[in-house]
């Protein structure tokens, strides 16, 4: 069903700068409580734009787990 098989994943060392959220074309990222970025899996299409700008390089684009 889903064409997007990939998903952005935020590492724990995120500094909550918000660079990722400002480039995400799907507005899939919010900075939860000023502490860490969170990706909404329902919106993310795995394009990797966020990972390319993250100054801390803590975002990885991973294959989605198959949903039961």
């Amino acid at each position: 069903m889903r064409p997007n098989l990939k998903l952005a994943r935020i590492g724990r060392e995120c500094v909550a700068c918000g660079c990722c959220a400002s480039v995400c074309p799907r507005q899939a990222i919010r900075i939860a409580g000023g502490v860490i970025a969170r990706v909404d899996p329902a919106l993310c299409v795995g394009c990797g734009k966020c990972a390319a700008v993250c100054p801390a390089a803590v975002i990885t684009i991973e294959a989605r787990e198959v949903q039961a």
Partner: protein
Amino acid sequence: MKQKHWYDYLWIGELAYLVLGLFNILFAWLGMLFFTIPLLVALFGGSKAYCNRYCGRGQLLNLLGKKLSRNQPPPRFLRSRWFRYGFLTFFMVMFGRMLYQTYQVFAGMPLRQAVTLLWVFRLPWQWPDVSMASPWAAQYAYGVFSIMLTSTLLGFVTMLLFRPRSWCVYCPMGTMTQGICQLKHRKEDLVHGDGAESPADR
């Protein structure tokens, strides 16, 4: 293209600050805004909205980085806790030293009319006379401007070497505001008792 908002132009303020300070050091006092606003937002708003949206410095680094950055991921240590908090500590010590120098001038020592880069190098620049202000106010302005220029320089170098906003990884204001938010939300978790979705998860 994403729609532009008024706050997308705050980088102009940052640039103006750096230029104005060169012409009259007393403008450096405006730098207090860059210290206090993010802290107040974190303390009362519990967010890093300042970093996420309103920081002119971050925007400026982003703009310059589009053309100039090598766009390489920074070394791991840059984002490590010990480096970020270590740099914050170092910064606070230097801030304290600057306050002490201000106090010394307040107490009668002569004004040191110098802006130092990286805490050591004296900037070769003749600042216009500011004798209309009290000496301590001028001394403080020199101190604040030294900090602002030094951090701009560090930000610029890491912008070139790594990614545009690499400075934001170890920016003392960014570390402090994130730290405050962490403490704040931990407390809220305790109060509301729903540790189920702690922001550090995922």
